[in-house]
């Protein structure tokens, strides 16, 4: 132990103390740059999302304020005897500098008719320049409840969940079956099929929008969730990922199962699938992400509000002439929540999945 202390002498000067860091040597300029860059990165990456979330709790009138306030604030309203509705409270500064809190009855041009809540019978006329709203921290939960109740957002949410779940199940099933076929058997045309599967990578949906639209129309799936679910269900990346993983499963296991007279389906379902769970989990996470975030294709297939997914509904809502931003912001947060949850719990899965497959 004494030797260890001796080998790294304590910093002798104040500057040395300030710049000392873990490891050896002094703080190099690249260290300063690195931390500055990362600090700026946190601000730039997190800031916008935090700002969106904070804004989503503001009332419609609170959002109109310029410059905006950081936290959601709402004007305090007071019940005044003789008035049916609660009146907004203002702090009024008199000419002589004294201040008092008055409730506003109505505003006529630049003059506000106000009343002292303690003395409801006398109205006071105040130039509006002399009054300032009294505000408190208030969260506008109605931004969240109203779109779900009054508009179709609950339906959109439901549609998104249906599409995501159904598409992921179909994708996992047919991709793992194909991967099983390609990984376990030796058969004529295997390489050709493998090449074909990889070849479909070259044809993204953006290149075949019109003909797939025709196919989906012929199948009668326009304005149906199936028209969104089915076209992207077979994925070359999924087949490839699962096949590579299944190749590592020992052949003896499969031979042993065959000896026990297990049918090929049972070998797939009971032996290979359970062993391939890690790869299937990665594909499931990817599929959920793809489907939940999918936009262009649903935009084309779904033209009626009842079948919109969240993404399409959100886009339609923000594209209206008179955008109700308080609702748009709240619904954006709702759309964002599942992704944040998935990320929070499965970050390691996702990052290792991407790093090892190079896909997203």
């Amino acid at each position: 132990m004494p030797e260890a202390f001796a080998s790294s002498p304590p910093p002798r000067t104040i500057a040395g103390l300030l710049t000392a860091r873990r490891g050896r040597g002094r703080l190099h300029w690249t260290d300063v740059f690195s931390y500055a860059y990362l600090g700026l990165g946190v601000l730039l990456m997190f800031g916008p999302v935090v700002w969106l979330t904070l804004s989503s709790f503001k009332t419609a009138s609170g959002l109109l304020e310029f410059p905006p306030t950081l936290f959601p604030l709402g004007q305090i309203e007071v019940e005044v005897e003789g008035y049916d509705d609660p009146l907004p409270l203002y702090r009024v500064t008199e000419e002589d500098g004294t201040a008092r809190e008055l409730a506003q009855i109505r505003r006529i041009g630049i003059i506000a008719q106000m009343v002292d809540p303690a003395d409801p019978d006398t109205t006071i006329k105040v130039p509006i320049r002399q009054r300032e709203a009294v505000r408190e921290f208030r969260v506008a939960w109605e931004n969240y409840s109203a779109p779900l109740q009054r508009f179709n957002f609950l339906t959109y949410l439901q549609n998104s969940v249906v599409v995501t779940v159904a598409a992921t199940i179909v994708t996992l099933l047919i991709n793992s079956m194909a991967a099983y076929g390609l990984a376990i058997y030796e058969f004529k045309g295997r390489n050709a099929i493998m090449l074909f599967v990889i070849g479909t990578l070259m044809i993204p949906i953006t290149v075949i929008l019109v003909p797939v639209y025709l196919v989906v129309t012929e199948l009668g799936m326009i304005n149906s969730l199936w028209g969104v679910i089915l076209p992207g269900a077979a994925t070359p990346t999924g087949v490839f990922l699962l096949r590579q993983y299944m190749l590592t499963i020992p052949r003896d296991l499969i031979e042993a199962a065959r000896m026990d007279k297990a049918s090929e389906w049972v070998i797939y379902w009971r032996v290979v699938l359970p062993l391939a769970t890690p790869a299937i989990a990665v594909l499931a996470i990817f599929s959920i992400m793809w489907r939940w975030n999918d936009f262009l294709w649903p935009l084309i297939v779904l033209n009626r509000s009842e079948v919109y997914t969240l993404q399409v509904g959100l886009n339609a809502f923000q594209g209206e002439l008179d955008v109700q931003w308080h609702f748009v912001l709240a619904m954006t947060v709702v759309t964002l929540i599942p992704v944040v949850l998935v990320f929070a719990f499965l970050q390691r899965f996702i990052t290792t999945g991407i790093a090892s497959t190079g896909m997203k």
Partner: protein
Amino acid sequence: MRPETHRLTVGAAAAAPMNLLGSLIELPFKAIQRLVGIRGMPYIFLVPNLGFFGIFVVIPLFINFAFSLTGGTNLFLSDRVYTGTEQYGFLLDCENFADSGSCREDRFWRGIYNTMVFVVFQVGFLVLFSLVTALILNRKIRGRGFFRAVYFFPVLLSPVVVALIWKWILLRDGILNAFLVTIGLEKILFFVSPQWAMFWAIFVSIWAHMGFYTLILLAGLQAIPPDLYEAAEMDGTSKERIFWRITLPLLWPNMLVVIVLALIKGVQIFDEVYVLTGGGPGTATQFIVQYIYNTGFTNQVQNFGLASAASVILGAVLFALTLMQLAAVRRKDSA
């Protein structure tokens, strides 16, 4: 990935219904196996997936060519008129290819030029920032996992969400303009100026996708054997020289993959920018995919033939880029 623990938890919860489902599907499969034998089974397992590929990828690919050779506004092929290469002629009819205004279908060429400008700047800065971020994250940094997550999480956000997050910041009365006013500048109408709209389209798409490429480059950096660095340090090689002579050459295969992948994605840019700017102001941020989308699906006259012809041209570009990608991946894997 820790397969053992994972298999146990998921397996325990899903076992019973999965077994039931498995036995239900087994009945028809057993019958089929009796019919075709074990040697026939791989084809049976492949049928569903290949069927989907056939119906939704391969057949459409051929229909796309057929569409691009026909005219009219009918969707069903049998109702369409054969026009030969007229659609391509229409798209490519330009007096001067450098000036989209001189082309008959000027919106198509505006889309191409916008996409080219977008791709050059977006891919360039995307790769640059991803490289810098990966290099920094590869250093001995406190809280590295946290910072990696910070840069990565926008990758998972939907393009609509990404666009709305930034639209809310960039609006006339948004927080960025509030900041500009506070420091004594004028408000800027970002979505009214073509240059600003293009700038933010590029900026936002870099913001959204940077984490993905950072991750790939970081994996590449971590694959460089540490003894190379130790040897270089022992020889007293300068940090700069180490970067240019060891890090960059060994990372280059990964860089190549990242560049080509970013190109493929960049050429197909649509979602974020469509929600952010709607292609505007005017056609300043209208890209090639939006041209196809508008021509085929939103314009009053749905011109499927023209949209298909434009898709075929886009497809040819992407095909060339994908061949480059495969070459890059092969080089990386053999390196």
